[in-house]
């Protein structure tokens, strides 16, 4: 390690905050992948490297909502359904549940969190518990239902309450 790196101040908790994880979630994720380094001080270069290493992906880069809909909540739900069906079609097996709302903040993130729960209640996604946290996967049979939601043609009743 370079000597300049030794002056870096980011603690393990700071790193976890940057990755929007609790330090315990980060410890579990790093324990599962590369392990915790001998010195728990981190620099900027570590943030992105560890983000990739522990499987964090931003499903909403820059907070962009891909589906246009004049009702904000519905736009978010349709976009989420679109992203999930695309994820399944592209061969994605499972992803961390918290990835599903990464990139969003405030009320938008809260709404998508609730939508993820309702998608699970309606059997559109499966939840898998892993050592490093909760994961979700999409069943092939649910892709058409997700596509209908993404197209705005059919919504489960309880999901419509999100923007009612």
């Amino acid at each position, binding site marked *: 390690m*370079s*000597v*300049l790196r*030794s*002056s870096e101040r980011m*603690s*393990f*908790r700071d790193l976890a905050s940057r990755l929007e994880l*609790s*330090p*315990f979630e*980060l*410890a*579990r*994720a*790093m*324990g*599962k992948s590369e*392990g*915790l380094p*001998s*010195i*728990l001080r981190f620099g900027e270069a570590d943030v992105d490297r560890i983000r990739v290493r522990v499987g964090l992906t931003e499903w909403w880069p820059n907070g962009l909502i891909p589906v246009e809909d004049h009702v904000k909540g519905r736009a978010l739900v349709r976009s989420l359904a679109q992203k999930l069906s695309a994820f399944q079609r592209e061969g994605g097996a499972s992803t961390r549940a918290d990835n599903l709302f990464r990139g969003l903040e405030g009320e938008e993130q809260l709404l998508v969190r609730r939508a993820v729960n309702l998608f699970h209640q309606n059997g559109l996604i499966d939840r*898998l*518990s*892993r*050592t*490093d946290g909760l994961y979700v996967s999409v069943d092939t049979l649910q892709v058409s239902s997700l596509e209908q939601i993404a197209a705005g043609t059919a919504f489960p009743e309880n999901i419509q309450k999100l923007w009612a």
Partner: protein
Amino acid sequence: MSIAPTDGGRGGDKPSGVNTALEEVSRWKEVEERRLVSKVHEIDDEEVRVQDAITELQRQLENLGAIRGEIEVKKDAVPREAARRMHQAVLMGLKDDAALLKQCSEAYGRALSARETRIAAQMSRPGVLEKLEAVERFEEVQEDLMSRIPGLYRLALIDRHEAIKEELRTVIDALSDDASPIDSNLGEVTLIASEDVHVDTGRVEAVAIVLPIPFGVSKWRDWSEDLRSVIAYRVVGAISSALTQINADNAEIQYVSYPKENDGLFAVQVWLGDSDVDGDFSKSFETEIEKLCDCASELQIASINLKVSWQHPEVVAPGDLEED
């Protein structure tokens, strides 16, 4: 015919031999009967004494039986009592370790602050950061650069580089040095672990690991990051790593207070019952703990060694045991 007396007329004074013999028999009979009656009385007396003795012995036997019963009950209770005492010993040991670790954590914090102060003092000197960046950038490209410039310039550049490094020597030393080791007076910190084994299958269903660290570390937003929280992160990382090695990366992990009161210690519960386990968690976990003891800088600075003590679940969490 008449029979004449043989003693001249005085024969009536002398008993006949038959009578004498009969009297003798009669006397013998009386004596013998008295003797035997006496014997019978002696035997009666002896029988009474023996009967009393039997009664006494019987009573003693019954007493012994009762004492045996009490001892058996006590003997049967020994494992449970031993578990109770071991539980108390575990609680006491964890409490002592937790108190020492708290002191150690404070000393560790002071050592880190001292290092930060040393570095800040060095880095605040004008131009230091720029020169350090230049030195490091040069070292990154040195090999490639040297191969492309003439020897004279090469030597001049290297001389200049070395001169700047020498000028920065105190800064580089401050950055390279870790925090000064502290005298923790602790040495070894014990993690108490236990495995619950399924009675029929013999498979480990659950694992619990208790750290001598307050449960408060789990509420990380309210807890200032210190040596104890860092140890907690590292142990959680070690558990995660061990689970991955035994194909149990779907195991549920929970953080709980031990004992169950809110101000207890930080414990990690792992449910393996739903995992297709392939390996021995205890071995993998101990290996991970050894690895982190060898490399974790904060443990080296604090001169702490972590040790895992495996205990029977009854010792760690006695069923209906009342706390003293």
